[in-house]
């Protein structure tokens, strides 16, 4: 007889809640129906019957378009993330709070890119994060006169190390440096939290794989741009799970033809099987999509196989994120007149 270790009530509670919340996500058949919708109005009608109804119905009919709907999807995503944070017991909350910081990181990246381009951004263009869950003063960052001032506003937050990269930014005039640092800070913080968790092996697996694969995609993307080695190094995530710095550096620096064998020699070989051609041609967007899609299916598998473990919750959150991305793709694609076939090619299914 298999003996299960005693599990804390708060862990059981959050996993049970996540099971319930999962039923609110769109099912594959719902996504298929949305892909087949002839226009945006049909999609809106379908959304009015589900979890998005409240937010979608709040949009005035003349303002219904892909942009306003995307705002709704990301608002919902933030709502789902912070709902989990709210219902989690104290010992687990830190991890989920920090997990949700990926939305904060995304917002900071958007602001810094806009400031780099000397343009303006409005708060609606950011993912809405409840004030109590963020230490970043987004309105002040938006209102800052330039990128220097925006970065300066991160001083009192966990993202303060970004300020140390100002010299490198000025030398290469690229925000990729900040993006790499932000991702590194995010994953380092999350990694530290995982150590305090029960069932940390499974959580490490799901977060570590995401982190490593993100780093591989980043390295392949940077290679395509022929950037200097110093810049490539500064733009990568500096934390590794089943990879190491040498492997990532060689992926970033070797010729595209030599990359595939390196990837096949790593722990992540299964993700790259069947991708030889696109890896050798270094078609980063296709690699990015194929890997993300595999990750999506991997997380679905985790939810099936480890449905009673804490790992079910981050897998659910990951699915929420994929849903927001899929919905954005569907509404934007429909507005732009993308065919059903083309849409299927860029969705996570």
């Amino acid at each position, binding site marked *: 007889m298999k003996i299960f270790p005693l599990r804390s009530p708060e862990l059981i509670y959050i996993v049970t809640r996540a099971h319930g919340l999962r039923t609110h996500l769109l099912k594959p058949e719902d996504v298929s129906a949305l892909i087949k919708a002839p226009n945006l109005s049909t999609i809106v009608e379908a959304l009015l019957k589900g979890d998005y109804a409240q937010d979608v119905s709040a949009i005035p009919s003349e303002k219904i378009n892909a942009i306003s709907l*995307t705002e709704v999807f990301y608002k919902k995503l933030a709502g789902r993330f912070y709902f989990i944070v709210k219902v989690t017991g104290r010992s687990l909350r830190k991890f989920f709070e920090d997990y949700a910081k990926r939305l904060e990181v995304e917002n900071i990246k958007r602001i810094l890119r806009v400031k*780099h*381009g000397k343009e303006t951004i409005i708060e609606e*263009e950011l993912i809405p994060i409840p004030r109590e869950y963020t230490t970043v003063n987004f309105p002040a960052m938006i209102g800052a006169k330039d990128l220097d001032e925006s970065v300066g506003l991160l001083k009192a937050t966990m993202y303060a190390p970004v300020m140390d990269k100002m010299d490198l930014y000025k030398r290469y005039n690229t925000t*990729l440096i900040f993006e790499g640092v932000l991702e590194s800070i995010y994953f380092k913080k999350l990694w530290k939290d995982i150590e305090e968790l029960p069932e940390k092996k499974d959580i490490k697996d799901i977060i570590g794989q995401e982190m490593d694969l993100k780093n591989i995609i980043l390295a392949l993307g940077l290679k395509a741009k022929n950037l200097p080695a110093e810049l490539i190094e500064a733009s990568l995530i500096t934390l590794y799970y089943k990879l190491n710095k040498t492997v990532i550096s060689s992926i970033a620096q070797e010729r595209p033809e030599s990359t595939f064998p390196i990837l096949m020699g790593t722990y992540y070989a299964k993700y790259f099987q069947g991708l030889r051609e696109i890896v050798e041609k270094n078609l980063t967007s296709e690699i990015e999509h194929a890997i993300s899609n595999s990750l999506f299916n991997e997380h679905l598998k985790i939810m099936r196989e480890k449905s009673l473990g804490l790992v079910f919750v981050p897998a659910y959150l990951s699915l929420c994120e994929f849903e927001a991305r899929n919905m954005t793709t569907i509404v934007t694609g429909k507005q732009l007149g993308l065919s059903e076939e083309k849409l299927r090619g860029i969705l996570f299914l």
Partner: protein
Amino acid sequence: MSFVVRVAATKGVLLRLREQLGFIQKGKEILKMKREQLAGEINRLLAEVKARGELEKEIMEAYDHLKKAHSTLGYQNLRSMALTVGQIDLSGLTYSVMGVVVPELRIEKEADISNVASGVAYEAAEKLSPLLEKIIRLGESEAKIERLVDEFMSTNRKVNALEQIVIPSIASTIRYIEGRLYEEMLEEFIRTKHVREAIRRRRA
């Protein structure tokens, strides 16, 4: 069609008109040469503009990539990525082709797309960025053609006016004066003969 200008039928006028005709004919030849040069330049530029169809195809293909990036990332995210693209720097110059001032655009700095973080957005930027130069070159050629064609038509009108109106009219005026001078000369000859005959008869 030619007009005969009624002028005093004198040898002085005839000489002046002959000089004028020679000058106008030289001018006509120069204008013809200019017209040929302009036609040659226009033909050369037309060959460049013919690539427009191909360019439009390339633009549509790049737009497909842009649509893919837009759909994948959403407007807000794509916009923030687009703002990391280093702007293209252009300077406008002018130069003269057979006296016609035409524009020339010089790309001082190409758009730097290496800052684009997402693969799908980078791919779209990679497809669009080289097209910018082609679009600029096409616009430049079209503007040149517009100006050269204006000048070509004006030169053509001038050549036609000289060939059809001015030269024939001066030539017929010359012919008229020559005729009048010939008649006057005959008149003078006959008058002289009559006078001589009268003097001879009076002496006899």
